[in-house]
């Protein structure tokens, strides 16, 4: 029997790749799978190339999102997920959005319209795109503390997120974690060792637990072995929904601490995305404008990032990643990522070649709210 609706849809299916394209793609994929099967060094994955492997500033745990979160996702995004929860615990223990909704926003009508005095030399506007995303910020932490060296480089990170109502795919979580105890509660602990093949740059230990009210928490310590991570965590107190922190060692700075009731997550937010061309694919910057809570860029800093100022604004700059020495293609100089607190709740991020650093600092440092009829919005805005 035919089904007119499905037939109609089938006729609109995208064309398949041609044979050569398909063969090339399958060859590359199979080579990587076979390397995994053989237990040998994996051929360089796409995610390790600089174009896709980004220094991760704004989202601290983003390095770990490169870890395949496979089974934990299955069964959560199908619209029949448990209780309609919008937050789930991923295979690496990270809180993730399991549902989402975004709408396009006319750039001229966006609340955020941040454009620079000028783009770096050689950059040219190509597009201004705005989205309001209800699914953003599922993992806003209640506590972030960073250990910094005298030059402002992050040498350790401690973060606590919760409480949230998160779905836990128990079989998967149990498979990929070990039982432990944290803050007097039974917990599951995820241990991730540095693994270039998986874009895991630093040792991380993350605990996930449910409190007495059945809500979920996560605590992570980055840059330390397990014993030291546990010791750093002793500076944290979780009392009901409240979190307090006292540094165990000198050299730590409190970056963010929730003092009120638990956050209502996800918070949503608006993304103002400015694309530029000029020779290097992917030039441009994003501005993420979020409602309360307003966390500084430093709350997303990862180990090896450095806290700086750009035109008087707090900022975070990554080390160079994706260079040839870092697994990038031969001759690649790699990329930097710079995140600047433009104003409370508005974070601008750009990824760029190291040679563009001064120009990008000037660009992000000069972002200002422009009028809705700014000619750049009229020309490049995507409605």
């Amino acid at each position, binding site marked *: 029997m035919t089904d007119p*609706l499905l037939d109609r849809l089938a006729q609109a299916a995208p064309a398949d790749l041609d044979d050569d394209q398909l063969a090339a793609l399958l060859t590359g994929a199979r080579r990587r799978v076979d390397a995994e099967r053989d237990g040998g060094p994996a051929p360089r994955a796409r995610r390790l190339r600089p174009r896709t492997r980004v220094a991760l500033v704004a989202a601290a745990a983003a390095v770990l999102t490169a870890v395949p979160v496979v089974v934990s996702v299955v069964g959560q995004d199908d*619209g029949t997920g448990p209780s309609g929860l919008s937050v789930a615990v991923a295979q690496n223990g990270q809180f993730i959005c399991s549902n989402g909704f975004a709408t396009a926003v006319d750039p001229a009508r966006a609340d955020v319209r941040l454009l620079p005095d000028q783009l770096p030399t050689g950059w040219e506007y190509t597009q201004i795109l705005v989205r309001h995303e209800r699914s953003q910020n599922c993992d806003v932490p209640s506590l972030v503390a960073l250990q910094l060296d005298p030059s402002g480089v992050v040498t350790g990170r401690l973060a606590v997120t919760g409480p949230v109502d998160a779905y836990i795919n128990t079989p998967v979580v149990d498979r990929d974690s070990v039982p432990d105890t944290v803050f007097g509660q039974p917990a599951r602990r995820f241990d991730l060792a540095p693994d270039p093949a998986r874009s895991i740059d630093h040792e991380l230990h993350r605990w996930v637990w449910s409190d007495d009210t059945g809500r979920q928490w996560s605590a992570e310590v980055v840059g330390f072995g397990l014993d030291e991570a546990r010791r750093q965590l002793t500076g944290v107190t979780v009392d009901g929904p409240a979190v307090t922190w006292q540094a165990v060692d000198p050299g730590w700075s409190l970056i963010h601490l929730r003092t009120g009731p638990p956050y209502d997550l996800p918070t949503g937010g608006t993304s103002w995305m400015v694309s530029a061309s000029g020779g290097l694919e992917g030039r441009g910057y994003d501005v993420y404008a979020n409602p309360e809570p307003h966390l500084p860029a430093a709350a997303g800093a990862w180990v090896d990032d450095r806290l700086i100022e750009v035109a008087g604004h707090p900022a975070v700059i990554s080390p160079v990643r994706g260079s040839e020495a870092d697994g990038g293609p031969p001759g690649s100089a790699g990329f930097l990522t710079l995140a600047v607190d433009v104003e409370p709740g508005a974070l601008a991020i750009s990824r760029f070649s190291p040679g563009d650093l001064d120009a990008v600092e000037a660009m992000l440092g000069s972002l200002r709210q422009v009028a809705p009829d700014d000619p750049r919005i009229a020309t490049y805005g995507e409605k």
Partner: protein
Amino acid sequence: MGDSPDERFDRLWADHAAAVVRYARSRVLPDDVEDVVADTFTVAWRRLDEVPEFGLPWLLGVARGVAANARRSRRRQGALHDRLVSLADGTVEDDDAWPSLDDDSSTLAALRALSEADRELLTLLAWHGLTQDEAAQALGCSRGALKVRLHRARRRFAQLAGAARDIDQDRTPAPHRGGTP
């Protein structure tokens, strides 16, 4: 005697790799397709014992999760040029991952306007050739849940596409229509 693991995996690859490519192309950026295919079959190799005899629904279920993670990762990385867009009920969707719309393609326009969940269900059936039972397996839901979801997806699609007559062709059982029981 059954096949050795290597033989079984090779057969799985030969039978379904192209289909996984097709699915991945409908779900992620072109640059991520190879990642999704490689990660999906890596999972299949590690969990070969769990792969059913007809492995495509299982593979697409894994690919679905891998693709969702790839999209999340991209968005979290703040790569503006990726132009990630999240759509209703889904995770993150990419405009560029969808075929370009012809001016008169009301079908694709309607498909694009659907929620992520509705669109995925319909395309699993129409584009990737799964039966309803297989789609339920790929989506990790029960057959009953799938039928209800399909009924609703068809109705929403028909409304968006201006294809009300297609509702009449709906052969899935109608769910409870609301009101006081």
